[in-house]
């Protein structure tokens, strides 16, 4: 049975409480031996002497949700995971705040290291999300991933 795509988008920053609660929910799954978590945080990078104060994220949501679903299915196919969660911010995320939360769990640690890096790289490459970097003086530039 094909699973229904989940919506992974969260309006605004992803809070540390949300992450903590998400970790706590896994304590009933006693076949898990290793969790690996990636968090993307907005950097206050400087450009022409001005600092980035926030990123405003937009997405081609229908396609993004389809791509997140494909990445999820491919990851479960490739690696022995017990569970996987992906959350990405939309809208405004200030510098120092978290915009991406990827959480993989497995009985064994070797699997989570390989799986997490795979998921994060796939998200960066395949999901149509766009970051508008806002400076303190209200000017902006479009984020380019490296």
């Amino acid at each position, binding site marked *: 049975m094909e699973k229904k795509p989940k919506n992974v988008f969260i309006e605004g920053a992803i809070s540390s409480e949300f992450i903590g609660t998400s970790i706590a929910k896994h304590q009933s799954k006693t076949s898990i031996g290793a969790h690996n978590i990636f968090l993307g945080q907005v950097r206050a990078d400087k450009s022409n002497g001005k600092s980035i104060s926030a990123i405003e994220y937009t997405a081609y949501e229908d*396609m993004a949700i389809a791509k997140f679903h494909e990445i999820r299915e491919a990851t479960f196919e490739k690696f022995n995971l017990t569970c996987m969660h992906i959350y990405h911010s939309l809208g405004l995320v200030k510098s120092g705040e978290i915009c991406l939360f990827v959480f993989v769990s497995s009985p064994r640690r070797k699997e989570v290291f390989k799986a997490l890096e795979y998921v994060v790289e796939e998200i960066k490459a395949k999901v149509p999300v766009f970051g508008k970097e806002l400076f303190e003086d209200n000017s902006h530039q*479009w984020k380019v991933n490296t």
Partner: protein
Amino acid sequence: MLLNIKYFGLLSEITGCHEEAIDFNGSTLYELMDLVFEKYPELERKDFQLAHNNEIVSGDMKLINNEIAFLPPFSGG
């Protein structure tokens, strides 16, 4: 055929809109791009990909529904 064209990120700043309806009588996306470049000449010099039916597609793709998106480089995460 009336197409629903979507523009994202930097591209939407050039077009001044996030989506618009364009009446299109060609068959491939190359023809559609020509039409759009005529309207927004600056777009032609930008780095973008086209998405159709939730996939990145090339210009020789034939349309299978009426929604096409112009996507600048992805910068999630």
